[in-house]
């Protein structure tokens, strides 16, 4: 295997939990919460890594931390040979690293036409485009939109059309890495399918490396090579798509996968119902952070912190993982 394109080591991102006078009075441990708590992973060139987890598990925070929209409180991020944790030249780095945001319309500047929006990366990086309209048309065509859209404004686009503009723009400078935050959010199922096919085709055409953040488990098989499952700002399980989806080893992954509705009504499947709420980030349980809701927890789970044990291609952070051949 060649050197990974993106490597994260023990990445920590913190948010202030208290403001004003209260923050001054509180002990330092209570002033901040860890939205990401020691994330380590690497992404190989050309692969698609999907990051899944429920709301509030830190998926979006992870994407924003990778491209510097949020500061790191600890850990290292390596993008090729660039150390993103050590004040890199973001202007140059971000040219290599495109990002797609959750809200397809809201991530487009409202007073710009589609033409200006897809050419924006060239303007930002002061790249001369000889025939701007032709270039914009070509980028739109690659994303499945025709030239009629050139003079539309974002509020005149549907969610799917705006998403395509977002895709066209993300690919404009041939980035080495695309971070896609919920690329199918807010789209109906047929449009989701179109967008996924588009992403897959582009991946084939450009040999793109992609990190996709999603809570839409149905799309995983169609698009991802590997999955990382997050819980409370940590990765609890990571590995190849088929293995994780069919034979999850972490009890949380198993519960997550079983919560996904099965399209086939005759297929019988046992749902794992988790008890209780996701703990607050301000009150992380001791030991294994999942033990409060875990159906198979034993008494020592509350005391010992599990490490993300790598075994072969997959890794799981659990003292008593489910058997791999179940």
């Amino acid at each position: 295997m060649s050197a990974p394109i993106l490597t994260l080591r023990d990445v920590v991102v913190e948010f202030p939990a208290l403001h004003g006078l209260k923050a001054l009075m509180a002990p330092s441990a209570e002033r901040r919460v860890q939205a990401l708590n020691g994330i380590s992973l690497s992404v190989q060139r050309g692969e698609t890594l999907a990051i899944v987890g429920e709301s509030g598990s830190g998926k979006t925070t992870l994407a924003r931390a990778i491209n510097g929209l949020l500061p790191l409180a600890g850990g290292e991020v390596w993008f090729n040979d660039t150390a993103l944790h050590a004040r890199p030249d973001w202007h140059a780095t971000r040219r290599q690293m495109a990002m797609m945001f959750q809200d397809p319309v809201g991530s487009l500047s409202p007073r710009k036409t589609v033409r200006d929006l897809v050419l924006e990366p060239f303007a930002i990086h002061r790249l001369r485009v000889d025939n701007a309209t032709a270039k914009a048309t070509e980028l739109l065509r690659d994303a499945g939109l025709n030239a009629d859209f050139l003079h539309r404004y974002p509020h005149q686009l549907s969610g799917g059309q705006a998403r395509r503009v977002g895709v066209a723009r993300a690919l404009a400078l041939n980035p080495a890495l695309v971070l896609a935050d919920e690329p199918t959010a807010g789209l109906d199922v047929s449009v989701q399918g179109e967008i996924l096919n588009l992403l897959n085709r582009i991946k084939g055409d450009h040999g793109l490396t992609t990190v996709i953040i999603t809570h839409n488990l149905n799309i995983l098989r169609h698009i991802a090579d590997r999955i990382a499952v997050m819980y409370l700002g940590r990765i609890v399980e990571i590995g190849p798509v088929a293995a994780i989806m069919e034979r999850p080893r972490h009890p949380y992954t198993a519960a997550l996968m079983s919560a996904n509705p099965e399209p086939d009504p005759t297929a019988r499947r046992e749902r794992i119902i988790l008890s209780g709420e996701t703990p607050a980030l301000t009150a992380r349980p001791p030991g294994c952070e999942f033990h409060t809701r875990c159906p198979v927890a034993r008494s020592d789970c509350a005391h010992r912190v599990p490490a993300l044990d790598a075994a072969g291609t997959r890794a799981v952070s659990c003292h008593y993982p489910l058997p791999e051949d179940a």
Partner: protein
Amino acid sequence: MSFRHTLAGRLMADPMAVVALIIITALVAIAVFADVISPHDHTAMNLADRFAPPSSTYWLGTDNLGRDTFSRLAQGSRIALYVALTAVTISGLIGLVLGMIAGFGPRWLDNLLLFIFDTLRAYPTIILALALAALMPRGLSTVIIVVVITSFAEYGRVVRTQTLSLKNAEFILAERAMGASFGRIVFHHVLPNVLGPFFILAAMNLPVVITIEAGMSFLGIGVPPGTPSWGATLKDGFDYIRNTPWIIIAGGLPLILVTLGFTFLGEALRDQLDPKLRKSR
């Protein structure tokens, strides 16, 4: 893009905007050609024709010194426009810059600027005008300074609120994620979205400024005596309101028209500049 889709084209389709533009165009034309269209010299006193009622010679009558009211009002439109445009431009620019600084700056700076804005907005304009007039020489620049001091805070607040809500909008994050510089974000993406509400506020503020100038002149703390300001005409008319009401009526008419014109324009602009409002109509 056809004319129908440009801002001007859309404004022409709105009857309120057309009325507004007719009034404003007339005002500007009168101000520019005041010397040509005035039937009399606005300073010439004709004591034989004091308090003359409106007639073919004196279209809107004459005042206590026999000066032609129409000619004075025509000259007054220059003063009104000059004060309004200068004061609104200066206070608007100050408000725009301070509002953006407050919006983008650290929290303590934001709080400081907000404190200044709120303090200034709490002063009643006329009381502040009276106080400042006591300290400064009488004249148009005093009027402009009073207006700027009392109104830039309003622009500042509007711009700050807009900036704050835009600062964390997803499209601004998207610009940052693409590597856009701070300057590009401010001038290409935040400013154009701030300017809509800003211009609406400016259009709505123009008549307010004209009224403040008239009010200060009416109270005798605005323009120097003898200047043909609309407020001075009102004051002259007020003294003789029982016997010759046409002076004060003639002095009030342009104020009413101009206020209506700019207010209509402001509302039409708001309808057109806010894409979401436009869609729902």
